[in-house]
């Protein structure tokens, strides 16, 4: 089991040891992730668990509590403690606490190369003798020291030294029932800290005792020349400056979204072309049967709706990964905390909000790191306004309809500008509602917010690739399964109706097989009388003021399962109706006409109205479930739904009425 504090390089170590042989699991009953991987050591298969980072065994954050419970469970063969070699002193409190549990352990000093660069010399033999546990200097980035780690992995032993004062615990024996050593004390504290506020005094005594030890161990084993580097000081001077800091931040976001659209466009077009051509090729020899229809108009459009957006999602995760690994994200938190604080949010809200651009579900979970209840509640309530990656396929499709070519304005790609605009629009609305909630919700509590500002680093690319792969894989397997399944259901609902009606239409168009014009009319009538057509028409009066027809209505309903289903739905609906020479999905939708007046269904007004609706509406059942689980409040879940969807409806209505 890997145990270490945040920023200790624990996950880099995990990725280096297990490579792609890893899976993600949730803790029982909650949605916090832990990573489990395997690797071979002396021909034995080792299972390695990467726990969430913890600062100490006294941490109270939910995520850290779960890691502590797992450490206390003893359901493992040994603990690999990971400490950042250039921040050893900071890690010593956790190291001493874990060693006091008397479990088989070893200590890895990760990033030893970084420590050397900063003139920090760690005398590992001295440290080893003081801690009475094996200490191995390692560089997870370059793989140095891993052989030595594997050599001694089967011979782990518990430290024979004691780093706590028994008198401290003995003094409070009347409160500390059944506490007989450090392990039972931590177990007792974890379970009873809420009932006994007096335990804080014992915690303080323990920390004071360990502080003396930490000072002694650090003095004996760490030789360092100075405080932080001048280079870092100089970079920070500009990146956290009151003017240049914000200029650089806006520039970073601007470049991110330009790259996101410009670079991703090429593989996306290629994927769309390949799958479109494959579908056409299949159509030339497949017989005219129900199965062939299912493959061509149900399965392939569904798969296209998943695969087509992989390049963009990959790039998004890459950009976020670079910002995090380089250390810049922490500076952004530092810079924005003052701004966020005014809106009732925390600087720690930035990571959930930024991650919300990938997916709201894990981001809402990551809001657990916010200690202040009010700030946490507000963060969760406004987070789904951030444009997640599931909205990206919808935006891409609709922006592509607005700007068919790579239109440029003053050298800037207009698609990229509009996409950036949508992200900023979501952020603005999120901040607006955060401010409103801040004023409405009355709750006084101190916020113990802190940000660790790590040294600037060049991202470790192998680590980034593994992280991105894991996230993209989850998108393909989890969201992909839903999208393809819904595409198939939609295909069925859009091509079938009540048997009597279907029989009547089939008889009416008996000669349609040989006449193209009649064939089109037949397909149109089938679609309009299909189950899905009936539902879409039922809700049409409600959505027509927004510029939507019944087909868009169907997509609004189905995409409640997952926003990106909108694209698959459109693909299925339009591939059913339009059987022209046009093969690409975007073209099919672009040329779609309203049968009553001959106008384009996707006019500029409808397009912009839809973009606004999707930017703001709560169109994700998974997010609602997670919000309910995290807040344990049906009231707030319903308030959030009404707020988001109501705002989306009103603004989409106003937009359409103005532009139409």
């Amino acid at each position: 089991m890997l145990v270490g504090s945040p920023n200790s390089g624990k996950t880099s170590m995990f990725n280096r040891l297990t490579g792609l042989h890893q899976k993600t699991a949730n803790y029982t009953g909650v949605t916090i992730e832990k990573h489990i991987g395997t690797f071979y050591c002396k021909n034995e298969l080792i299972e390695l668990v990467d726990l969430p980072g913890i600062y100490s065994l006294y941490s109270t954050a939910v995520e850290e509590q779960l890691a502590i419970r797992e450490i206390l469970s003893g359901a493992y063969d040994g603990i690999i403690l990971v400490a950042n070699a250039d921040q050893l002193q900071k890690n010593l409190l956790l190291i001493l606490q874990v060693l006091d549990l008397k479990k088989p352990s070893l200590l890895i000093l990760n990033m030893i190369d970084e420590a050397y660069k900063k003139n920090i010399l760690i005398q590992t033999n001295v440290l080893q003798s003081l801690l009475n546990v094996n200490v191995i200097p390692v560089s997870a980035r370059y793989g140095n020291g891993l052989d030595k780690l594997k050599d001694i992995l089967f011979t782990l032993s518990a430290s024979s030294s004691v780093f706590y004062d028994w008198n401290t615990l003995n003094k409070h024996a009347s409160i500390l029932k059944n506490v007989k050593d450090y392990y039972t004390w931590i177990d007792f504290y974890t379970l009873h800290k809420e009932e006994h506020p007096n335990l804080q005094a014992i915690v303080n005594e323990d920390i004071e005792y360990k502080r003396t030890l930490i000072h002694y161990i650090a003095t004996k084993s760490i030789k360092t020349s100075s405080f932080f580097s001048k280079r870092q000081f100089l970079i920070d001077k500009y990146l956290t400056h009151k003017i240049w800091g914000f200029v650089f931040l806006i520039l970073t976001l601007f470049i991110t979204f330009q790259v996101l659209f410009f670079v991703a466009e090429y593989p996306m077009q290629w994927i769309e072309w390949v799958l479109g051509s494959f579908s056409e090729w299949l159509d030339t020899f497949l017989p005219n049967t129900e199965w062939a229809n299912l493959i061509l108009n149900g399965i392939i459009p569904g798969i296209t709706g998943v695969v087509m957006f992989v390049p963009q999602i990959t790039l998004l995760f890459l950009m976020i990964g670079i910002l995090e690994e380089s250390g810049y994200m922490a500076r952004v938190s530092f810079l924005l905390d003052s701004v966020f604080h005014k809106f009732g949010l925390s600087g720690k809200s930035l990571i959930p909000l930024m991650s919300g651009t990938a997916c709201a579900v894990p981001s809402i979970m990551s809001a657990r790191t916010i200690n202040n209840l009010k700030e946490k509640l507000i963060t969760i309530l406004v987070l789904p306004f951030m444009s997640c990656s599931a909205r990206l396929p919808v935006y891409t499709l609709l922006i592509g309809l607005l700007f068919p070519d790579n239109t440029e304005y003053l050298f800037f790609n207009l698609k990229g500008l509009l996409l950036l605009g949508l992200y900023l629009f979501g952020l603005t609305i999120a901040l607006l509602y955060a401010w409103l909630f801040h004023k409405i919700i009355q709750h006084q509590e101190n916020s113990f917010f802190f940000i660790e500002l790590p040294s600037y680093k060049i991202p470790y690319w192998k680590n980034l690739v593994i992280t991105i792969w894991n996230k993209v894989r989850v998108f393909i397997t989890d969201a992909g399964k839903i999208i393809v399944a819904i595409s198939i259901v939609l295909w069925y609902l859009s091509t079938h109706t009540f048997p009597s009606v279907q029989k009547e239409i089939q008889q009416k168009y008996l000669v349609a097989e040989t006449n193209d014009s009649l064939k089109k009319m037949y397909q149109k009538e089938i679609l309009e009388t299909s189950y899905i057509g009936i539902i879409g028409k039922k809700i049409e009066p409600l959505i027509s003021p927004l510029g939507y027809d019944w087909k868009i209505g169907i997509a609004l309903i189905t995409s409640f399962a997952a926003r990106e289903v909108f694209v698959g739905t459109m693909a299925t609906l339009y591939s059913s109706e339009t059987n022209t020479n046009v093969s690409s999905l975007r073209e099919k939708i672009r040329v779609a006409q309203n049968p009553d007046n001959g106008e384009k269904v996707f006019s500029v007004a409808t397009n912009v109205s839809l973009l606004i609706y999707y930017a703001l509406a709560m169109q994700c059942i998974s997010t609602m479930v997670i919000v309910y689980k995290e807040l344990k409040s049906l009231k707030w879940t319903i308030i959030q739904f009404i707020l988001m969807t109501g705002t989306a409806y009103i603004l989409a209505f106003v937009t359409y009425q103005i532009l139409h």
Partner: protein
Amino acid sequence: MNTETSFNLRTIKVGERVKIKEIKDLIIKNYLAQVGIFIHQEIVVSKIAPSGSMIALQTQDLEIAIRADIANYIEVQPV
């Protein structure tokens, strides 16, 4: 300068090196210790956020930014 005199951390300017003399709240004291800030530790105020809402502190091996309201509880003395 009299090293016995103590000041509130919020009054310290960027670049000044001081020693933590006292943390007035036990919960905050325990909390800061867990992230690597202890009593009697030497720190440098490395930067202050544009609006003054956060203060970044450097220790020997760590740079950490805390909210200004937390800094109110910290008394320091010159080194």
